[in-house]
């Protein structure tokens, strides 16, 4: 470990760091802009200047950039010397020449890194007398607002968007003091990670557009430690609330999972929490089919009437917490409980869990995925099914560049030098899918196959790894890359609803792991608690189809946070509706299941309660409410307890707190560690609860001061160690309880480094979450053989699901901006099929199958397996299209293509500078 001397004081720093990182790690305040802990250094902003001295005798020293200079043992530097301070102030003064003084109306105000750095360097008086440069802003879609005049040209946006996330449609344009960061023309940003621009930008150029329309200052927001419910990866998020409205979501650093970045579904997909589809009151269905609101305490009267023979069946949900699912199963008994997914999905997910429990390969976190140096993806379009993992794989393909740089003595943080050296050299990534994916651009090879062929391909590869007898040059090539890699990674999942793909992935990983113990195997899981729900399943559980078959024997069916219309066929939904069974739905939003229910119990969303979710690697993580539930909403676990009281289940109705729910869940073998996931409600930091609000601030009460200077009374939080208050310490508590980041002088999200043990390193509060799945390492016993290849039927297409980050997830689709981006449901065709049908993007086709005929829009994929056509999975309107069915597709001559939507130009700078022709 090198020791550096800063202003005469010695600090031991991590090896391989630069001086900026070393100073920040030492707790020193050194301003910076362009450096990013996860993206490295380029040396453009010149803000992190230090004076470095050659040796003890050097009294003069010279200015160097902290981010571009290795922290070598014995390095002597000064932050405080006048020369360095004067230079850093000059840099801010230059950056402020053209920066508008619009802080009072800028949505970044109060959490602006530029504000912080300006104050930190002490710049105040302006000497520049010229006019400011101005720019025209662009319309970038519904998620991101663009205000180019605020730009300080740190290049972070371009570097994140292009270099890190692989986006193509945002770049640095023009030159000198007219540099412009934007698209080639107005239009929706294409990247699924565009929202990170909001946090990457050190000032207010790229801001959260929905938040802007429903704005609060950071110091007015109440935040909580939360977990994204958008998919099975379990990224950590920090939702912000004010007066009962979920305002925005920020990334919450988790060293093992999301690091600094989340996807746009995670950041923008929770608008449904404030939406008009929320269930607010207990509803009881009147004979005329309409719902009437009743009081909470009236539910017992109705339920008791319905009980009949007392046959109550429960349907759980992969998007409800472990606790809610567990209580419902406990209430009705395992033999009367269904996990609430289709049999196919259930079987695959159960198998995925059992593979992870026995595989010889390790089951990596997102961060470990980033370390892979050869990757095989079987069947998953990761950008749309597990976006954060796709982003990690994109980083992993750069490992070759880092290895090349290391050989040449170039530090990993020297980002531009690493890129210039490696150019287009990438670590090998092989993608075997049915259609094009957003990772194809970094793949060494993409292989387009039907789902069965993917499974066979994987099996063939596993055999080659075991016995080396394959004749297929492609198989041999991929096997060679995987066996020569140091950290090979196999990624697969359930998205094609083909169990054999998962088996083959396990076979490949196990075969590799026989000779390489660094082999990794990762599965995606579709929903936020899919893994948790599988873990709490019991052998006696019912399948949904069992319930439908025997529906008339059921008196009361309790449906927990599950829109069954997404799992059942239209026919089965009709059967359910026609039955005499009384259906009680506990859910967050109105949906088709609610429509056919007899009682609706309004559930708290993820933002209004706490619970545990288990992510795709089996990591259990706790989320906490950011505000107490409005109206008559209750946490769904609380509703189950209330129902338990009605039917006189003493064990459950005696539960008095959430911690007791957890204790009960911990009786399940798989969940013994549940109470260790996060501290219980009695946890105190220096005797105080953890505040959800930022520190005391006099501005807080300003919003309604015209009517009353008093803040509305905040509800007490009896259930958790957090409090709806500004009183308390948010400093070094366990990471699972960190609601937001803030540190004196560091008001922006850059204050995160004060919570980290080192930059880009683990949090001081320790790791967050507990892995519930541990592999025995004894190996996977395979239970399948080569699938006979399906003969293609002339003029028939086999349907395969196609996922969209915006559109395929149930709840986020009810967020206005997400539904706008999702667009129309579609059929995806290969270019050749589209040409034959004489259709292109946006045209219409008629899809006909058994009892099915729909007219639907077309999208053309760059590649699509022969004989297959994709359908937009999860889009509400097309529940009739199902995987692996055969349909005929013909051009719809009557199709009316939507008129192109006129996109309004956002705003035009009110005056133009003399030389605006450069932009």
């Amino acid at each position, binding site marked *: 470990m090198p020791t550096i001397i800063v202003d005469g004081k010695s600090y031991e720093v991590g090896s391989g760091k630069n001086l900026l990182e070393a100073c920040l790690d030492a707790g020193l305040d050194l301003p910076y802009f362009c450096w990013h802990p996860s993206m490295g250094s380029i040396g453009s902003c*010149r803000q992190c200047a230090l004076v470095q001295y050659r040796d003890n005798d050097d009294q003069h020293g010279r200015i*160097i950039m902290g981010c571009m200079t290795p922290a070598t043992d014995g390095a002597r530097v000064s932050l405080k010397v006048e020369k360095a301070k004067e230079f850093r102030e000059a840099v801010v003064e230059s950056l402020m020449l053209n920066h508008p003084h619009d802080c009072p109306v800028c949505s970044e105000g109060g959490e602006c890194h530029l504000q912080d750095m300006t104050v930190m360097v002490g710049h105040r008086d302006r000497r520049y007398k010229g006019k400011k440069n101005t720019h025209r802003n662009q319309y970038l879609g519904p998620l991101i607002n663009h205000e180019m005049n605020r730009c300080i040209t740190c290049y972070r946006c371009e570097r994140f968007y292009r270099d890190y996330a692989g986006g193509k449609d945002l770049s640095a344009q023009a030159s000198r003091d007219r540099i412009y960061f934007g698209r080639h023309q107005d239009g929706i940003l294409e990247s699924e990670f565009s929202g990170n621009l909001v946090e990457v930008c050190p000032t207010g150029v790229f801001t959260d557009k929905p938040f802007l329309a429903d704005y609060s200052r950071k110091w007015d927001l109440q935040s909580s430690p939360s977990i994204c419910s958008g998919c099975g990866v379990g990224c950590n998020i920090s939702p912000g609330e004010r007066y009962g409205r979920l305002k925005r979501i920020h990334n919450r650093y988790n060293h093992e999972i999301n690091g600094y970045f989340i996807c746009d579904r995670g950041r923008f997909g929770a608008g449904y929490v404030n939406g008009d589809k929320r269930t607010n009151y207990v509803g009881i269905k009147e004979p005329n089919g309409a719902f009437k609101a009743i009081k909470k305490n009236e539910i017992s009267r109705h339920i008791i009437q319905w009980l009949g023979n007392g046959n109550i069946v429960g349907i759980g949900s992969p998007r409800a917490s472990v606790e809610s699912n567990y209580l419902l199963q406990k209430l009705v008994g395992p033999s009367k409980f269904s996990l609430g997914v289709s049999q196919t999905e259930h079987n695959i997910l159960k198998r995925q869990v059992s593979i992870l429990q026995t595989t010889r390969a390790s089951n990596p976190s997102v961060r470990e995925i980033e370390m892979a140096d050869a990757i095989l993806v079987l069947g998953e379009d990761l950008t749309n099914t597990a976006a954060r993992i796709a982003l990690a794989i994109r980083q992993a393909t750069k490992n070759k560049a880092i290895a090349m740089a290391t050989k040449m003595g170039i530090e990993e943080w020297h980002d531009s*030098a690493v890129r210039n050296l490696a150019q287009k050299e990438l670590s090998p990534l092989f993608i075997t899918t049915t259609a094009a994916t957003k990772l194809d651009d970094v793949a060494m090879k993409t292989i387009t196959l039907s789902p069965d062929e993917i499974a066979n391909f994987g099996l063939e590869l596993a055999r080659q790894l075991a016995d080396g007898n394959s004749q297929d040059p492609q198989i041999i090539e991929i096997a060679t890359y995987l066996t020569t890699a140091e950290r090979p990674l196999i990624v697969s999942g359930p998205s094609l609803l083909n169990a054999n793909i998962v088996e083959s992935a396990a076979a490949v990983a196990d075969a590799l792991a026989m000779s390489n113990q660094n082999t990794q195997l990762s599965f995606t899981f579709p929903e936020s608690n899919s893994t948790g729900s599988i873990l709490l399943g019991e052998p006696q559980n019912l399948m949904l189809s069992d319930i439908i078959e025997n529906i008339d024997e059921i008196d009361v069916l309790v449906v927990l946070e599950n829109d069954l219309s997404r799992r059942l066929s239209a026919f089965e939904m009709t059967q359910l509706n026609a039955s005499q069974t009384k259906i009680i739905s506990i859910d967050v939003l109105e949906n088709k299941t609610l429509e056919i229910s007899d009682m609706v119990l309004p559930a708290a969303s993820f933002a209004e309660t706490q619970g545990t979710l288990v992510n795709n690697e089996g990591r259990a993580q706790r989320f906490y409410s950011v505000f107490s539930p409005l109206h008559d909403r209750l946490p769904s676990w609380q509703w189950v307890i209330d129902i338990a009281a009605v039917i006189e289940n003493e064990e459950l109705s005696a539960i008095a707190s959430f911690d007791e729910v957890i204790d009960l869940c911990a009786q399940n073998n798989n969940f013994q560690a549940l109470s260790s996931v996060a501290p219980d409600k009695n946890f105190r930091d220096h005797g105080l609860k953890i505040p959800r609000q930022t520190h005391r601030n006099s501005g807080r009460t300003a919003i309604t001061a015209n009517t009353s200077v008093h803040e509305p009374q905040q509800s007490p939080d009896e259930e958790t160690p957090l409090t709806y208050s500004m009183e308390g310490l948010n400093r070094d508590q366990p990471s699972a309880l960190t609601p937001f980041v803030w540190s004196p002088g560091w008001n922006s999200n850059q204050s995160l480094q004060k919570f980290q043990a080192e930059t880009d390193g683990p949090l001081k509060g320790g790791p967050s979450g507990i892995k519930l799945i541990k592999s025995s390492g004894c190996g996977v016993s395979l239970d399948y053989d080569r699938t006979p290849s399906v003969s293609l039927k002339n003029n028939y297409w086999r349907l395969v699901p196609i996922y969209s980050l915006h559109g395929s997830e149930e709840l986020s689709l009810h967020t206005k901006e997400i539904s706008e981006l999702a667009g129309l449901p579609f059929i995806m065709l290969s270019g050749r099929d589209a040409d034959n049908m004489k259709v292109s993007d946006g045209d219409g086709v008629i899809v006909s199958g058994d009892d099915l005929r729909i007219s639907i829009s077309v999208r053309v994929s760059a590649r699509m397996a022969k004989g297959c056509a994709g359908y937009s999975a999860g889009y509400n309107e097309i529940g009739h299209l199902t995987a692996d069915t055969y349909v005929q597709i013909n051009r719809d001559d009557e199709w009316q293509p939507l008129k192109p939507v006129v996109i309004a130009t956002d705003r035009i700078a009110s005056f133009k500078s003399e030389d605006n022709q450069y932009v």
Partner: protein
Amino acid sequence: MTEKVLTKNISNVNDTTPIDRYEANEGYLGLRKALNSMSPDDCLLEVKNSNLRGRGGAGFPTGMKWSFVPKHGDCLPGHKYLICNADEMEPGTFKDRLLMEQDPHQLIEGMVLSAYTIGANIAYIFIRGEYRLAIQRLSEAIEECYNSGYLGGNILGSSFSLEMYVHPSAGRYICGEETALINALEGKRANPRAKPPFPQVSGLWGRPTIVNNVETLCNIPHIIHKGAEWFKTLGVGEDSGTKLFGVSGRVKNPGCWELPMGTPIRQILEDHADGMQTGLNLKGLLPGGGSTDFLTEVHLDLAMDYNVIGAAGSRMGTGTMIILDDQSCPVGMVLNLIRFFAQESCGFCTPCRDGLPWTRQVLEDLENGKGSEADLETLAYQIKYIGTPGNTHCALAPGAMEPLQSAMKYFFEDFKNHITLGRCPYEMNGVY
């Protein structure tokens, strides 16, 4: 009369030297000699011994630069590259154009020899886009060389092969910075790269690359053909060889001449440029292009050698002087230059991108008679902030500040007069 080396084939201003005439005047003899009887290491040694220094402006010893190229085995697999920097955009500089337009084969021979020495098999001439005639003549000459066996596979029957391409620049001053040039050649934004790593190790496409100026490369055939010792005798001062010196500004005979290294400034000005125009006196001069510090009359007897001019507080630069006469406004001249440099900043780093326009604004106020004493302090502050090497990502910004800082030193009264008079004292003279 001095021995003509670089311009020995150049007589008629509008003429070029076709391959037969070039060959007839000892052309390609250096190349034949090297390929027949010299190893790349022999060539490197010869160039090192010649003390040839880079003619692009920095004066870095060419042989030493070449010696940083890693041998095969010490570097990543792939090509090595030679790039000729022909992006001549330094204000007041027009020497490379002459060499390329009128003797393209001299440059090509120099490049083949240089590529042979460093082990490059691909060479680019990155040329200023406006140099259409040079582009045309070089392209024709390269075609002739492929036909005559001087380029392509197995040159002159040896095992050495070289492909050569002419790449016209899209046109930015910053492309003359070698790493920005490399980025531009790769199709990227022409921002300079951070060094280290140096291009000799990781340059074009991430592989070892040597970037040399046109005039530097034109010296190579002669050094190889006639030897380092002969080359050293050409200079009259401490540096070796001859150099193309140019003079622009209000002199009687502005132009460009090949003279021995170390020729005194006065001799260039008086014997070749024929002195100042009638009625004008010399006030100052930028010895090597727009990004060098002013020298004044007291420096006229200095030898045009890298270290001599450096010791006087300026730089040899490209060796093409810009003359300031006593009827022209030094503030206006500096403003004109700063406008150019602010315009040409690539925009990568803060002091250059935002600092130069700020300097421009202060100088505009001064020149327009709206300046104040505080502005002089601001200028001094900016000189330190923008002009200190290491403060910025590349050398453009310190170069941009050189004329200003020396003008403040030598012509401070002129700056003051703008403030006290509330106007430009030279405004009646109609220049700048």
